[in-house]
């Protein structure tokens, strides 16, 4: 029942829905952050609803420009904080409870298969990794859902991404999604649901699936979805969510396209500036000199990512002239990384360990790039000026490649140094 249209039909109270149809359905979770919530709260006020539809189902996370970057962002956070307290929201994340929203919500046990989740953040599509329908919207759409518990959607067409094979060491969810975006182009899946299935799914960890689902928006997709298989159900159990195993079952409308990917043939990928679709194998990437390496974000800020980075960095130092910034994505990831000794590895490598924040990914703070600088980053966007100056450049990769490249100072296959 994890196919997108089946979830939407269940929420619409019908047996089936047709691609292109407009539906109004209840939502199970509504999310906003310190950038998008202030506008949502203003619009919410115009509705005159008074209270949110359900104080357990509206989640606000102050993660983008926090710890407060400047007075203007501090004012925005203060505004959201007042609203969260007034509305007595159960899930308001501030101060030491802040994690990067899409790392945090699954860990908090707020996501379950079959749910409909909307968030005022384009990477809300992350949660599809756990078999739910999850998509990004703007502040006004989220305001309406905060008040009414409902939203409208155009029922999407679907594409099947069929995975086979087992990926090599140093290849994971990030490489799968960069490779796929390279095939589709940045608008190749616009308005479409990308559905991942096939015998290769079990060879991608749940954290790797969260990484892959996170970036389906970079191909324009409305959502991405994985089956809630044995691995996903185990992960969910670990965060206190009981869910049955369920597979991707196509409805009578099927798929408009099928893409087959053999994971065993895939090399670590790089997305060159300045589009996520500029995918090349690491071996084919130019040997540019790097000024900064960032490991973290809603794409790759989970414990598995920290462990992989530490495995590559152990006993090594970042190259002279490379600023290595590592951002554990949540308080849990932070504490576990510390307890497992990963912080010693990172500090020995000369890294800066940042608190959980979106910070540098969007050129906000905590690692903004100067004119002409180049960064390799495990984040999700490499648009012109994304991390700072309009003349800076961003390359995207998985955490292993990022760590290896920090050591050499240029884009490097981890296999060469480990």
């Amino acid at each position, binding site marked *: 029942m994890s196919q997108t249209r089946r979830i939407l039909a269940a929420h619409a109270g019908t047996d089936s829905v047709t691609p292109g149809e407009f539906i109004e359905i209840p939502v199970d979770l509504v999310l906003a952050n310190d950038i998008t919530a202030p506008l949502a709260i203003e619009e919410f006020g115009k509705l005159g609803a008074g209270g949110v539809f359900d104080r357990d189902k509206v989640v606000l996370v102050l993660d983008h*420009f926090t710890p407060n970057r400047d007075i203007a962002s501090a004012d925005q956070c203060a505004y959201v904080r007042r609203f969260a307290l007034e509305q007595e929201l159960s899930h308001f994340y501030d101060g030491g409870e802040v994690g990067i929203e899409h790392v945090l919500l699954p860990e908090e046990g707020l996501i379950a298969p079959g749910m409909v989740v909307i968030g005022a953040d384009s990477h809300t599509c992350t949660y599809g990794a756990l078999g739910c329908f999850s998509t990004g919207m703007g502040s006004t759409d989220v305001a309406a859902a905060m008040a009414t518990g409902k939203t409208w959607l155009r029922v999407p067409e679907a594409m099947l991404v069929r995975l086979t094979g087992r990926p090599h060491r140093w290849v994971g969810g990030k490489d799968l999604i960069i490779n796929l975006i390279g095939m589709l182009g940045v608008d190749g899946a616009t308005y479409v649901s990308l559905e991942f299935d096939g015998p290769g799914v079990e060879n991608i960890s749940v954290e790797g699936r969260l990484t892959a689902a996170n970036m389906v928006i970079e191909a324009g997709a409305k959502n991405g979805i994985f089956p809630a298989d044995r691995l996903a159900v185990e992960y969910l159990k670990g965060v206190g969510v009981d869910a049955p195993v369920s597979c991707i079952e196509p409805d009578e409308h099927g798929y408009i396209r099928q893409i087959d990917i053999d994971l065993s043939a895939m090399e670590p990928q790089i997305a060159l500036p300045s589009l996520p679709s500029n995918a090349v194998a690491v071996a084919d990437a130019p040997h540019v000199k790097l000024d900064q390496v960032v490991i973290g974000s809603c794409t790759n800020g989970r414990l598995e990512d920290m462990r992989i980075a530490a495995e590559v960095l152990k006993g090594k130092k970042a190259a002279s002239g490379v600023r290595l910034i590592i951002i554990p994505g949540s308080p849990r990831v932070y504490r576990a990384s510390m307890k497992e000794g990963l912080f010693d590895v990172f500090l020995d490598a000369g890294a800066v360990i940042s608190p959980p924040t979106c910070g540098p990914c969007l050129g906000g703070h905590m690692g903004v790039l100067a004119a002409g600088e180049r960064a390799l980053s495990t984040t999700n966007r490499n648009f012109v*000026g994304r991390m700072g100056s309009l003349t800076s450049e961003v390359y995207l990769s998985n955490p292993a490649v990022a760590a290896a490249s920090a050591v050499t100072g240029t884009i490097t296959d981890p296999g060469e140094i480990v």
Partner: protein
Amino acid sequence: MAAREILKGKAHKFGDHVNTDIIIPATYLVSNDPAVLGKHLMAGQDPGFAGRVASGDIIVGGDNFGSGSSREHAPLAIKGGGISCVIAASYARIFYRNALNVGLPLIESPRAAAAISDGDELAVDLAGGRIRDVTTGKTFEVAPYPEFMQRIMDAGGLIEYVKNKS
């Protein structure tokens, strides 16, 4: 009968994949005021752009206009910068919804987007579904919004639509 509103302005042409980091870089997302955001319109590509826009001017983009983040500040910056409507070959979906919600008219026309040149004077009849390039004399017919979305437009945006329903 009242005269139908015609949007008139000069075309400012952009390419494909104009993303929201181009339209309004994230560093400026500390205000919701369209006028403040409008001062930084297109600063991710052309920091001098906002200063060259006259009220009523029209942005013309290629494919996938508005891709990237969900920031509703993007259509607000376009409105606040004095732009009357956007014409593009195609739009990214979150931006499309956001523009609908903030009352920024979007026109999808691959033919018009390709044919219009930077600096052309345009006249857009939204209700009639027609774009006229005054400089070249060419006209382009435009498909109407889907009926469901037109209801939201007619209500004056999503907030009014929701209020009217309850």
